[in-house]
């Protein structure tokens, strides 16, 4: 037992959780913690807006697999974090968010900068805590990290009243956690495993649908082995991009509203679908009633509530994906011979051939072409973050990803402004790897003040802005489904080269593909943040596309 203040106990507990970095922004109600932080070995990265601070922690978590930590003051500091917390919740990113709170004596009195952040974040956190006594802090932190990082990961918020930070108490730092209402089930039920094996051994046209769960449980290698054993093509969800190398002969790319043509076609032809770590999101399945109607569906997930939530499945298995796929693979390997070729794989090649020339990838600075050329100059392990909108969907379709945790994007919430701060977090996690944010001008404007953070903290990322002076995805919908009646999508043209330079970053405005490649190559060697402003046509659309509310069979190719 050791006597210390709540703030000291917090920092001590974070040390014990091996926290290396906190992304944060101080304010009145969190000053006691900042006072202790000043003398600690934990790196603090000062954001310029709390939303960005949360996205940085999120990007850090996704690139590293560790828990991302962000911190803010009470009231507006806490509410500004909310978008970033919701984003992490929707994409199951492990995060611990710490907020200051007014002293307990003022809670409920509408005190200055008081907000009920526990009430506000209840639906967007895995759990939240408000310790009322300093002595509760060590155990609370232990539980928060445990909950955030195990089972289906997610954000946990800890709201610390100011007096709780200041009060001293005898602190006990537990080595173990015991939460009686929280026992994630890692191992699948053997009966269910047997059912899956039976289905998979009989499958003639199996397909695997791999989601973000594969990446979260580090099950990519098992997934690949399974696909090869079954000779099953793999479609990924948007969150699952990177779970199988996208140059693998069995990889069909991302499925869904802006999915690859072959993914959207072949999934409807499969007889058995192995859905692993996915949640049947509307953006992935299209019209759910039409999705894989006559296919036997197996769903594996660590979160039981995902099973049957959006789609009724034939065989559900609850378990950790790595452990479950290992069990399935070991059993199947004894029963099946590895196939080199069969009718189903021939069909895969035939469909690929059919669609090869159907999609126009443009030339010069047309985004599909630009992203393919960008891929060629980047090392395989480069990390790509994206903003939200057309830039994101082009990146998903045309930028091939070869390793897990190298494609980081806001899937569930679709948060504009996510990519740039997330790239800063990812670069902090992986300082030796090139990190690029594929941006749109609309999204970049939302969090471009993070340039101040990346410059002052010397975190050199590269931002590629596909600049069409528009809210491009909304404009595309208005062009296609609202008779070109543009409403509030024209942003105007801004010079991001100058904006970058004003913050002390390198800025470029690009006129040709050759120039673009040259600038990227030099930026890769540079140690300062680089913003590459690439003007593109406002008329560019993302294809393929499934119109909202339609089924995958209604994919439009151009």
């Amino acid at each position: 037992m050791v006597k210390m203040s709540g703030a000291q106990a917090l920092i001590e507990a974070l040390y014990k959780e091996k926290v290396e970095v906190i992304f944060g922004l101080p304010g009145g109600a969190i000053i006691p913690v900042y006072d202790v932080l000043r003398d600690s070995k934990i790196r603090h990265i000062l954001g310029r807006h709390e939303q960005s601070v949360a996205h940085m922690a999120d990007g850090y978590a996704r690139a590293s697999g560790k828990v991302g930590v962000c911190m803010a003051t009470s009231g507006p500091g806490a509410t500004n974090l909310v978008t970033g917390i919701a984003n992490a919740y929707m994409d199951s990113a492990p995060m611990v968010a710490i907020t200051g709170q007014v002293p307990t004596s003022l809670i409920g009195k509408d005190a200055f900068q008081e907000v009920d952040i526990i009430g506000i974040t209840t639906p967007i956190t895995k759990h939240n805590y408000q310790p009322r006594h300093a002595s509760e802090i060590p155990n609370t932190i232990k539980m928060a990290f445990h909950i955030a990082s195990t089972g289906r990961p997610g954000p946990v918020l800890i709201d610390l009243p100011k007096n709780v930070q200041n009060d001293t108490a005898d602190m006990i730092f537990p080595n173990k956690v015991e939460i009686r209402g929280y026992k994630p089930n890692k191992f699948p039920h053997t009966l269910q495993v047997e059912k899956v094996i039976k289905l998979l051994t009989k499958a003639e046209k199996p397909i695997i649908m791999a989601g973000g769960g594969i990446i979260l449980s580090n099950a990519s290698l098992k997934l690949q082995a399974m696909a090869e054993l079954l000779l099953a093509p793999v479609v990924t969800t948007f969150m699952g991009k990177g779970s199988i190398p996208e140059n693998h002969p069995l990889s069909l790319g991302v499925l869904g509203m802006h999915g690859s043509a072959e993914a959207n076609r072949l999934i409807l032809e499969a007889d058995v679908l192995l859905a692993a770590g996915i949640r049947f999101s509307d953006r992935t399945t299209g019209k759910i009633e039409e999705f894989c109607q006559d296919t036997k569906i197996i769903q594996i997930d660590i979160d039981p509530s995902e099973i049957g939530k959006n789609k009724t499945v034939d065989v559900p298995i609850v378990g950790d994906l790595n452990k479950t796929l290992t069990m399935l693979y070991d059993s199947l390997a004894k029963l099946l011979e590895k196939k080199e070729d069969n009718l189903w794989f021939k069909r895969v090649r035939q469909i690929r051939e059919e669609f090869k020339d159907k999609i126009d990838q443009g030339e010069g600075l047309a985004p599909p072409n630009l992203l393919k050329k960008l891929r060629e100059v980047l090392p395989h392990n480069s990390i790509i973050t994206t903003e939200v909108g057309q830039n994101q969907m082009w990146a998903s379709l045309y930028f091939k990803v070869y390793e897990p945790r190298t494609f980081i994007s806001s899937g569930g919430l679709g948060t504009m402004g996510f990519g740039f701060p997330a790239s800063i977090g990812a670069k902090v996690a992986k300082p030796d790897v090139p990190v690029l944010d594929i941006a749109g001008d609309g999204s970049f404007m939302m969090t471009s003040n993070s340039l101040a953070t990346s410059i002052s903290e010397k975190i050199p990322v590269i931002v590629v802005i596909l600049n069409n002076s528009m809210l491009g995805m909304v404009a595309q919908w208005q062009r296609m489904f609202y008779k070109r009646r543009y409403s509030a999508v024209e942003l105007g043209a801004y010079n991001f080269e100058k904006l970058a330079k004003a913050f002390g970053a390198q800025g470029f405005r690009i006129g040709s593909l050759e120039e673009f490649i040259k600038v990227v190559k030099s930026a890769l060697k540079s140690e300062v943040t680089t913003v590459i402003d690439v003007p593109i046509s406002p008329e560019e659309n993302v294809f393929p596309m499934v119109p909202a509310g339609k089924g995958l069979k209604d994919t439009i190719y151009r």
Partner: protein
Amino acid sequence: MKSRVMTYIISTIVENKPGVLHKASNMFRCRDFNIDSISVGPTEREDLSRMTITIDGDKATVEQLVKQLSKLIDVLKVSVLSPESTVVRELALVKLHVTDAKARSDIINYANVFRSRVVDVASGSITIEVTGSPDKIDAFLTLASTFGIKEIARTGITALVRG
């Protein structure tokens, strides 16, 4: 194929801590579940509470509700109770208009038939406490409505498995 809508009783054991009811009831709202009634009270253990929830839904809805409830960290146990093996009780306080002596004696007679009790009498009203299954309370209220009901307070059901 739509499955049949039925009334389900869900019994949960939760941490006896502030904010737990909010977390549970907020989850219902966020997930678009409609609660018919909810009652919360202490159990034999000081650190645990029991929440009894009734909802009208189909099988799939109830399954999803149970999973979502179980996911809450403060929820320790969730069970769907089958009507045959469950003792179900609800309490209602019913305040009725009393216009004359005859009405008063009629009400008291009926209350006796329903094994309910008179808990308050005033010059223009009488308040009855009825305990029993929700059906029994509904039946009493139908009868009582002929006298004119001023106010009703119902607890929502609470339930335990038999044996």
